[in-house]
C-alpha cells in the first residue's frame, strides 16, 4: 500500500486473465469490484434500484457524504481528527441561511463567505491544537460543543426557510442523469486528488501524518501544516453544509452536528485512509461513501428489515470489507509468487 492511490508497483504479468485483474491493484479497485457486484445483484433482484429516481437520490446524498468524508480525511492525513466537522457544518448551514435570507446577499457572495466562515472555525481548531499542544481529539471534541452551542445561542434553534429559490433548485438539478451536487463533490475530489498527489503541500501533509518528527527534521513546518488541514477541513465542512442547505432548500439547526460524526470517518477509513495518518485516498473515500449508500439503498429497495435494517447494514458492510480483505491477500500472494 503506497500512500496515495497506489500506482501499482508490479504492473506486468497476469494482465489478461480475470484472476490477474482481481489480484492486482489497490483497495480502491477492490471496492469498485464490490460495488459493481452489489449493483448487479440489487438491480436483478429489485428493478427499482436502478430507476432514475433512485439513482438520482442516491447520488445526491452520496455527494454530501463524500464531502463530509473529505473534511475528515484531510485531518486524518496528518494523524489528527476533527470531531467538530458536524458542528462546523451546522454553523455554516445557519450562516449560509442567514446571509442569503436575512442579509439578502447574492448567492455567490454568500457561498464564499460561508466557506470562509468554515475555514475560520477550522483555523480556531488548528490554532488551539498547535498553541496548546492538546491533542486534536480533545480540542475538537470541546470545540464541537462550543460551535454548536454558539449556533444555538444565536439562532435559538429557529430554522430559516425563505432561501432564494434558485439555491434550492440547484440542489435538485442535474446534468443529464448526474445530480449537480455529485458533480460538485467530484470537482472537490479532483482538487483534493491533485493536492495530495501532485503538490508539495499535499506531500508535506502526508509526511507530517506518517512521521511528524521526521517531517520536522526535514524542514517541514509541522505547526503550520496542522493549522492548514484544519482550515481546509473547515472549508470542506462548509462546502458540505452548503450542499445540504441547497438540497433541503432550507437552513436548520437540527442537521449535520452529531449526525456527521461517524459517516465522516466511515467513508475515508473504508476507502483506505489510515486512522494513524500519512495515507489518504480520495478515490477510496468516494467509493467508501458509495459502498455504504449502495448497501443502504439496496436494502431499502429490497424492503429488507424495517426495524431490522441496521442489522443487515452491519452484516453487509462487514461482508463487503471481508471480501476486499480476501482479495487484497490474494493480490499480495500473487505479487510474492511472481518475485
Amino acid at each position, binding site marked *: 500500500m503506497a500512500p496515495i492511490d497506489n500506482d501499482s508497483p508490479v504492473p506486468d504479468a497476469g494482465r489478461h486473465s480475470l484472476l490477474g485483474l482481481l489480484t492486482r491493484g489497490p483497495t480502491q479497485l477492490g471496492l469498485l469490484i464490490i460495488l459493481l457486484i452489489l449493483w448487479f445483484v440489487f438491480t436483478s433482484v429489485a428493478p427499482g434500484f436502478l430507476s432514475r429516481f433512485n439513482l438520482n437520490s442516491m447520488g445526491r446524498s452520496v455527494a454530501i457524504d463524500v464531502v463530509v468524508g473529505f473534511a475528515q480525511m484531510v485531518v486524518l492525513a496528518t494523524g489528527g481528527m476533527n*470531531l467538530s466537522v458536524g458542528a462546523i457544518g451546522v454553523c455554516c448551514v445557519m450562516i449560509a441561511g442567514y446571509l442569503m435570507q436575512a442579509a439578502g446577499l447574492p448567492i455567490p457572495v454568500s457561498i464564499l463567505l460561508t466557506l470562509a466562515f468554515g475555514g475560520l472555525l477550522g483555523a480556531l481548531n488548528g490554532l*488551539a491544537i498547535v498553541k*496548546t*499542544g*492538546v*491533542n486534536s*481529539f*480533545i*480540542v475538537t*471534541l*470541546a*470545540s*464541537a*460543543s*462550543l*460551535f*454548536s*452551542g*454558539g449556533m*444555538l*445561542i444565536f439562532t*435559538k*434553534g429557529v430554522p430559516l426557510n425563505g432561501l432564494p429559490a434558485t439555491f434550492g433548485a440547484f440542489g435538485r438539478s442535474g446534468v443529464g442523469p448526474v445530480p449537480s451536487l455529485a458533480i460538485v463533490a467530484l470537482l472537490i475530489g479532483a482538487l483534493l486528488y491533485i493536492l495530495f498527489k501532485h503538490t508539495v503541500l499535499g506531500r508535506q501533509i502526508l509526511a507530517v501524518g506518517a512521521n511528524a518528527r521526521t517531517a520536522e527534521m526535514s524542514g517541514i513546518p509541522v505547526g503550520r501544516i496542522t493549522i492548514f488541514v484544519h482550515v481546509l477541513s473547515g472549508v470542506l465542512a462548509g462546502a458540505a453544509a452548503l450542499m445540504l442547505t441547497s438540497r433541503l432548500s432550507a437552513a436548520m439547526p437540527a442537521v449535520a452536528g*452529531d449526525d456527521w*460524526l*461517524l459517516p465522516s*470517518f*466511515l467513508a475515508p*477509513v*473504508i476507502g483506505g485512509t489510515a*486512522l*494513524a495518518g500519512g495515507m489518504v485516498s480520495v478515490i477510496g473515500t468516494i467509493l467508501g461513501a458509495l459502498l455504504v449508500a449502495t448497501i443502504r439503498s439496496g436494502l431499502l429497495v429490497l424492503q429488507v*428489515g424495517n*426495524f*431490522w*435494517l*441496521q*442489522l*443487515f*447494514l*452491519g*452484516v453487509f*458492510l*462487514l461482508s463487503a*470489507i*471481508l471480501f476486499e*480483505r480476501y482479495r487484497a491477500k490474494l493480490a499480495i500472494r500473487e505479487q510474492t509468487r511472481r518475485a
Partner: protein
Amino acid sequence: MKTLLSFAARTQWSGILVGVIAGGIALSFASPAFMTEFNWFVMLRSICVSLLVAFSQMVMLGVGQMNLSVGALGGLVAVVTGGLMDVWGLPAIVAIGIGIVFGGLAGFINGWLTVRTGINGFIVTLATGSAFAGINLGITKAIPFYNLSPAFVAFGNGRFGPFPLLLIVPLLVTVLLVIFFARTVEGRYMLAVGGNAHAAELSGISVARATIMAHVLSGLLAATAGVLAVAQLGSAQPTIGADWVVISFAAPIIGGASLAGGSISILGTLIAVLLVGLIQNAMVLLAVDPYWVTFLLGALILAAVWVNRYRAIRVGED
C-alpha cells in the same frame, strides 16, 4: 507534604482533579443546593453508567484499538436483560447474568473478527455496532420493556446517605481494573500490546489473544453499563447507549489515555467522568439558560484540559 505535592504535579490527571475540586468549591458557594445529600446522590448516580462506558472504551485504548459498538452493545444488553425479565419473567439475577454473558460474547465476536480478518477494528466495530443496534430495534420495535423485577429497580434508586447503591458496581470495577492493569500478567500484556504490538509479539505475547481479551472485557463493561442504565431508569429503553460514543472516548482521553494505545489511566478516567458530571450538574443548579449549556460545556472542558496541559509542560513531561 512536599512529596505529595510533587507527586500530584507529576500525575497526569492532577490538573483536571484541581479543576474538579475548585469547581466543587466554587459551586458550593454559588448554590446552596450543591452540598445537599440528595444532590450528591443525583450526581454520583449520574456518573455510574458513564464511568463504566468510559472504562469500556479505555480498555480498548489500552490495547491500541477502538470499540465503536460500546453504545449499541450496551443498549442491546439492556433490552435483552429487560426483555428476559418482562417477557419471560426470569428472576433479575438470571436475566442480568445472561445479559452480561451476552455482552462478553458480543465483545468476543468483535475481537474475533478483528483478529481473524485483520480488518481495522474501527470498521469491524462500526459494522457490528450497526448490527447490534439493528437487533435491538428488531426485537423491541422501539418499545421499551417495563415489567422489571421490583428489587432490581429499587436497587437502581436506592441510596445510602449521599451514596447511590448503584455506585457499588463502578467502584468495584474501578478497583478490579486498577489491579488488573497494574498487577496482573494479562493486564500488563494488554498494555504491552498497546504500547508496541510488534515488540510484544516478538516477546512471545499473543497479540491476538490480548486483543480478543480486550474486546471481551470491553463488551462485559459495556454490558454492565447497559444493565445499570436499566436499573437506573426503571425500564429497558431501546435508546439506551445511543449517545455513549462521545463520552466513552472523551473521558479516558481527558483522563490521560493516548489514542495511540498502551497508555491509560483509570483514576484519570474516573476524574474526567466526575468533571463532566460536575459541569452538567452545575448547569442545572445554576439555572443556566438552556441555549448556553452546550457552549459552556465545551468551554469548560477545554479550559480544564488546557490547565492540565500547562501543568504537564511545566513539569517537563512530554
